[in-house]
């Protein structure tokens, strides 16, 4: 009896495979679920617009973000200068566009690189265990004993300020979370039968953990990358606002906001800091929407 019902099941699967409804099914479900999430779609659209606007900044704005023009200082928004000009006559709209390039690059780049480091260590350590795991765990605990902003500031004071240093600092402070995530996933996957099967075939550890196990841990990792992109962009903005992030001569969203520390500018020249603050908030909100949408659509525990 059991045998025939099993045969029937296999027949059904075979039929579905032949009709090609099988292989595309899973992907389309994730995409559909994401597309049904209105906020995630809105987030994705605005995110894309802001990213494209930063990439094509030279086309959208004729001004050079660094060029000082003392004849047009502190002009309110007009048809010529959409977001007005700052205290040295630089066009704020152009600075927001070019600043977006740097800020998004820092946010996304640090998130991806810290994920690469965290996953590389976490997968191997989680699967193998042993002394590598113990050391990596302790090191990540050391980094997690600091409030994040304090650790970043401490490292800035050690290394000095530069774009490269800032990204390195973000990676150093950010890999721990990803490592713990990857490690936890690996620890539970390690006991799965397919992994034991692969091991009994004599596959190398590298192949098992990076080729066969990692893809099964990918969706929480993707969600985490999105959320840490948002966090890094906010941290960069905060640090540059304090004057401790990216050197002030490079336009970033945080550096543009830096002028708002001056109460006169805060009071009288809202266009120098208002629009860019809104752009940061909207961008980060969109990234968070995307992350949330990704989590909802890929988390198997939420799939109906």
């Amino acid at each position: 009896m059991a045998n025939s019902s099993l045969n029937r099941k296999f027949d059904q699967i075979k039929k579905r495979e032949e009709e090609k409804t099988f292989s595309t099914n899973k992907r389309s479900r994730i995409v559909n679920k994401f597309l049904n999430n209105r906020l995630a779609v809105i987030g994705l659209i605005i995110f894309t617009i802001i990213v494209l606007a930063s990439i094509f900044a030279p086309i959208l704005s004729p001004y050079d973000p660094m060029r000082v023009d003392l004849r047009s200082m502190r002009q309110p928004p007009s048809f010529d200068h959409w977001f007005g000009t700052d205290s040295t006559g630089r066009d704020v709209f152009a600075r927001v566009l070019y600043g977006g390039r740097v800020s998004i690059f820092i946010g996304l780049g640090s998130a991806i690189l810290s994920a690469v480091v965290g996953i590389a260590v976490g997968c191997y350590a989680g699967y193998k265990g042993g002394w590598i795991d113990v050391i990596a765990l302790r090191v990540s605990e050391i980094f997690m004993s600091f409030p994040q902003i304090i650790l970043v500031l401490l490292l800035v004071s050690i290394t000095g300020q530069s774009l490269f240093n800032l990204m390195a600092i973000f990676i150093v402070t950010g890999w721990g979370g990803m490592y713990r995530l990857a490690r936890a996933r690996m620890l539970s996957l390690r006991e799965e039968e397919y992994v034991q099967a692969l091991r009994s075939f004599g596959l190398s550890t590298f192949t098992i953990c990076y080729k066969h196990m990692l893809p099964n841990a990918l969706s929480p990792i993707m969600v985490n990358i999105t959320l840490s992109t948002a966090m890094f962009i906010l941290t960069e903005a905060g640090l540059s606002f304090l004057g401790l992030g990216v050197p002030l001569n490079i336009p970033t969203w945080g550096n543009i906001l830096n002028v708002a520390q001056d109460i006169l500018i805060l009071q009288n020249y809202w266009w120098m800091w208002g629009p860019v603050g809104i752009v940061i908030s909207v961008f980060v909100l969109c990234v968070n929407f995307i992350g949330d949408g990704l989590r909802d659509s890929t988390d198997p525990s939420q799939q109906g």
Partner: protein
Amino acid sequence: MTTYIIQRLFIFFPMLLAISFLVYGGLELSPGDAVSHMISPELALSITAEQLEAMREAYGLNKSFLTRYWIWLTSMVQGDMGYSMAGGVAISEIMAKTVPATLELSLVALFFSTIIGCSLGVLSALKRGSATDNSLTVAGMAGVSIPEFFFGLVAILLFAIELQWLPVGGRLLPSYETVWDRIPNIVLPSLVLALMMTAGAMRYARSSMLDVLAREFITTARSKGMPEWRVNLLHGFRVALTPVVVLIGFRLPLLIGGSTIIEQVYQWPGIGNMFIRSVRGSDYPLVMTISLMYVFVVLTASLIIDVLTALIDPRVRLGKE
């Protein structure tokens, strides 16, 4: 239980020691030593190499790294934190002045964020799936997406400059006599700081409340014919909020770290403000002491959480190794 606490302490102290060593060593790697920061550029032209060497000798800078670390560590344990390089003020004095200010700000913010976050979270759980629930979720995400200093600046512009209801910043003025005089100063920074925490508290409260509402004793209470508000308030609310409040209470370290930028925006004379000033001025002794204090707070908090969780849930300590 005692063994568990001892186990945790065996992790706590080596951790603190390792971090202090790393921080000390890290700051050692930064360019220049204490003497080179004390000498003004004009003085540097007239000073001779021997004089420099004599200064290094006087400050003990020519001893080996490990010796200096040991001297620093032993005096630290005895409560002597050394002196700030800016003005030579004792660091313990600076800490005594700034830590209470930060605690005051953080505790008020914690109070606001817990009350607002829990009530909104419960509301959104009770109206699950409704427009209220959805808009609260979106508002919560906006709360974590807006940079808190930008929010702070807008609040200053609106309430301090345009409406002039509240002061722009600062904590104490010489003319302040009673507690009531000080309240206007803390309203803006604490509310802005609370905003950052409210979203998290709301999410916890919501999921905890949803969890409880699905339990059987709620069904029982309903089937007894109890009015819905009594079911929600007396049975659901009370059970759901206990874990949330415990959890939020221990987010204080996060709050203290998060207050750094807000203190700067509002010129609040707290530890975060002092930390940023010391980082800007490369005041290494102060940078080191303050960051280690943060580490101490975080580690102590996580130790207390671990012990409390073990007290509440015996599986934690029994299942361990």
